[in-house]
């Protein structure tokens, strides 16, 4: 991993408690520039808390974290200029149209020619047709794609995607996966959280297994697979098989 370039994200001994609930109990992690890392773990493992700290929405109790070389605690503004966050629930404005959502983001990123940016991203994510309709009328998958498109505006070097496919039907999930790959194509560092092993498998270069506020294992898929899965991970593993059946049953063509 150490090829001379500084990592996009460095986390050292990060701790966070809410009252007497120790959500993060000392997280260490390094994310290489341009890689896609999946934080894999069940609900309540601390994934979202970790992402919120990295996105400057929360302050850690102990430990340090730098994003794009900036300390999240002391250089929050520089961190914010380096990232974009797609939260657990599609962070789109339902009253506005898709085009207006994108243009608003471009304006808030202080970019010129917001219309051209909106047009380009609508086309890239296959949303041009729906672009002038209010997002309230869109499907969950379309909203998520818009959400990710909004995160790309301004080309931030680091993108956080918090459970990008939770609550989506299998078809929409595949569409969102395509959108994530689209986002990664430009060399952006992507940190995504997920409860699904197959999602991590599909998208990530490296996987970090988060459990009870710690990172139990981190490495490539092969490294992770060599480890004996913990009980909680088995539970996650059941999901894909159901889904494969569903997809097989609902597939329109054999491709």
């Amino acid at each position, binding site marked *: 991993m150490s090829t001379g370039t500084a990592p996009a994200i460095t986390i050292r001994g990060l701790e966070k408690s809410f009252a007497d609930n120790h959500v993060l109990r000392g997280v260490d992690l390094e994310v290489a520039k341009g890689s896609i890392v999946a934080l894999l773990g069940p609900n309540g493992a601390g994934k979202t808390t970790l992402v919120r700290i990295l996105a*400057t929405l929360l302050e850690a109790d102990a430990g340090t974290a730098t994003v794009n070389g900036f300390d999240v605690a002391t250089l929050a503004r520089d961190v914010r200029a380096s*990232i974009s*966050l797609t939260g657990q629930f599609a*962070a789109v*404005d339902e009253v*506005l149209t898709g085009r207006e959502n994108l243009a*608003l983001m471009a304006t808030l990123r202080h970019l010129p020619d917001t219309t051209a940016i909106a047009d380009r991203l609508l086309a890239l994510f296959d949303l041009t047709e729906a672009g002038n309709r209010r997002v309230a009328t869109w499907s969950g998958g379309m909203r998520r794609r818009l959400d990710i498109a909004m995160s790309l505006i301004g080309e931030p070097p680091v993108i956080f995607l918090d459970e990008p496919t939770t609550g989506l039907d299998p078809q929409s999930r595949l569409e969102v996966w395509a959108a994530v790959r689209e986002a990664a194509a430009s060399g952006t560092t992507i940190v995504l959280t997920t409860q699904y092993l197959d999602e991590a498998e599909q998208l990530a270069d490296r996987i970090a297994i988060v459990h009870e506020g710690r990172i139990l294992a981190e490495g490539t898929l092969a490294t992770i697979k060599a480890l004996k899965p913990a009980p909680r991970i088995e539970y996650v593993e059941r999901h894909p098989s159901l889904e494969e059946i569903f997809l097989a049953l609902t597939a329109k063509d054999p491709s």
Partner: protein
Amino acid sequence: MSAHFVTDTRALLGRSLRHIARSPDTIVSTAIVPIIMLLLFVYVLGGAIRAGTGPYVNYLLPGILLVTIASGVGYTSYRIFLDNQSGIVERFRSMPIARSSLLWAHVLTTVVATLASLAVVVGVALLMGFRSGAGVLAWLTTVAVLTLFTLALTWLAVIPGLTATSMDGAVGFAYPLVFLPFISSAFVPTATMPGPVRAFAEHQPVTVIVDGVRNLLAEQPVGTDIWVALSWCAGLLVVAYGGAMLTYRHSQLR
């Protein structure tokens, strides 16, 4: 304060004004209760009320305008609460935008919507026989006082919008404000009220604001009233703004 404060606020104001424009029912529903009160007080109770020298609607309108403002500001809490519930605030907060611009956008949206509701209420009052020979300056002063009062109450309404844990809690704040004009000179002169009530009525901001606006519109000398009214509004604004900003900062890093 960020270098982008103005552009960021303008962009976010455009966003929430679009919300209003796409569901203008908030402007109408803000005006409905005051209009009902106007009808009730003029056509049902007004005959038995001795207040002022001209038609009762002339006496009544300033108070009704404050009722309109009180019922309009609640939408600020509503919109801020809704925003916080959706993920969009987290997105904004993780972006390099001026921190207070989101609140300013919501506040200015309420001010614009409330001024529109006020215009509707004045329109209805005109149909009901309200007349004023007040000049441009008096009208401008009236608008200035009402805008300042709206701004102050709106910043106050930001606080429940940020702190409430349920929608009921967020919007519940505004209801009591609607009744504040009742314990003032808005509907009847304070002289007939019993001691303690009268003392409260004569020393709360609604009375000075109502009296000031009433005198402006009736072409009466406003004396120091209007300055007292403006000071109340400005003082309330400073306190509410400070409280809202403090709450906002505190709620940012939970």
